[in-house]
């Protein structure tokens, strides 16, 4: 390691150090006189843009249980289950495991009804691991409107069955009451 320098170099070093230090201090001094840009979280918060990839929310009325989002997830963190009654769904389960979720938004794009979205909520704190299996449903079972629709559909179906049965019975009666039919065995 070379450690011998001339006197001229020594004083040049001293001058360079002082000059560049003062140049730097001029910059920091400028910011000393300004208001700091620190945002005192959690008292103050920055605005969150609308496209932010936060905790999911589901529009349950639109969902048709097609499992496209569950298939698109790279880590399989969506679990959903619903029982189909005719055209209506009875919801049993729609959970997202936030211990696995990596907030990649790949589940949002394939949805054919555009009903799963990612919101602006990002804080998810809990003392227990079981709470991270977040339930996205706003109600379990069937909604009131769905039940009304199902009942009306059942009634309509029952009416149609009854009408069909009545028509079949009439037809049978009409056939039976035909006079002098050729099938009657001759006496």
């Amino acid at each position, binding site marked *: 390691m070379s450690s011998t320098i001339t006197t001229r170099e020594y004083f040049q070093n001293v001058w360079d*150090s002082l000059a*560049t*230090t003062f140049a*730097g201090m001029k910059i920091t001094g400028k910011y000393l006189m300004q208001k700091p840009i620190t945002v005192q979280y959690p008292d103050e918060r920055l605005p969150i*843009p609308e*496209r932010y990839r936060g905790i999911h929310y589901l529009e349950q009325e639109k969902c048709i249980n097609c499992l496209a989002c569950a298939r*698109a997830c790279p880590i399989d963190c969506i679990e959903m289950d619903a029982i189909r009654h005719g055209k209506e769904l009875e919801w049993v389960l729609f959970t997202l495991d936030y211990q696995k979720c990596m907030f990649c938004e*790949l589940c949002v794009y394939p949805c054919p009804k555009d009903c799963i979205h990612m919101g602006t909520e990002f804080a998810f704190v809990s003392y227990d691991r079981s709470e991270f299996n977040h339930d996205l449903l706003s109600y379990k079972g069937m909604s009131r409107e769905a039940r009304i629709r199902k009942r009306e559909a059942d009634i309509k179906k029952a009416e149609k069955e009854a009408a069909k049965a009545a028509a079949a019975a009439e037809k049978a009666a009409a056939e039976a009451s035909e006079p002098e039919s050729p099938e009657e065995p001759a006496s």
Partner: protein
Amino acid sequence: MTEINTPPEPPEAKTIEIPEKARTLPSGEREFMLDVSTSDLEVNMGPQHPATHGVMRILIRTDGEVVTGGQVHLGYLHRCAEKIGENVEWLQYLPYTDRYDYLSAMNNNLGYSLAVEAVMGVEIPRRATLLRTICAELNRIGSHLIAFGTYGLDIGAFTPFFYCFREREWMMALFEKICGARLTYSYIRIGGVFNDAPVGWLKEVERFCDVFEEKWQEYYDLLVVNHIFVQRTAKIGVITPEMAVDYGLTGPMLRGSGIDFDLRRDMPYMAYDEISKAGVYDVPLGRGEKGELGDCWDRVYVRVQEMMESIKIIRWCLGCIEDGPVIGDIPKVLKVPPGEAYVGIENPRGELGHYVASDGGKVAKRCRVRGPSFCNVAVLEKLLPGTFLADSVAIIGSTDVVIGETDR
């Protein structure tokens, strides 16, 4: 082969011979403990360390203050990314690509998407190409800001770190507006980009460019030409041009040694052949201004200059972007035809290469990544011996290693 896991043999323990008359001090007292034998100390610059830029373990052998050997041990952040690539579908692998070089995630997404698109042979719309270029260059600025800021922090300069992060916050806010995430974007996808820029985003990028040019001058005056920083980094960790080529270095480590090679200009991809032909930006090279050619200062200088060149590229893209679709003709269920491709792109750290092999299914057959940091870190074993212990920190910082990329 025994050299791989065991460090080389330590040199002989030295016994200092002290003549009899030196054993008595002028005051008449006798010295104790003069027959001390010294041997080299092997110390772990262990996986947890504030200055190794991640979980990297370096076995340093020192003789007092002088380092006599250094061996790098990797693998503490290995997450089997390449194996996972053989088990998830093409589009599902995209979030995993973010996570190797987490400081420049857009470039990773870009490399993977370009490799798969090369196998598929798909046409990317113009707006998507320009948006990709803007995002990749913005992320290059962000990554160099961290490299520069944390390098100052390793050396002991605390202020430039916060200034660099102030600009990086703005860059992350821009990315948050366009794709919703601040670090692992998953924005550049196979076939284009996921969503179009919101209204006003391009104007804000232009404002960022204007403000950044003033702040760049601040970084330059604060740290790059500061005499203390120069004294700590000049003539340290000199990589000669021959050594750089021999070790297969790429990126600022190669250009810091004066070799003029930039993948964006010499093996262009996306819009970069247009950009090079239009002469929009220059490739900054180390010139040995403050010491020798290829020392740590040259590499820092190259990174800092590259930030300005990225601004020029962004301005060019903003000038010629037009409306249009942002995603090409990609089926919903992606099945890539059989074939293989290797595409290397210019990451902020060097050449990031993706080798993708497909056998016609929904899942890749092989997805191999050539991480630039992994190849750049090999030179440490040659650079560290002979330096002081404090300089070894400066050398490790100047390689700008990100362990997520080294280990995947």
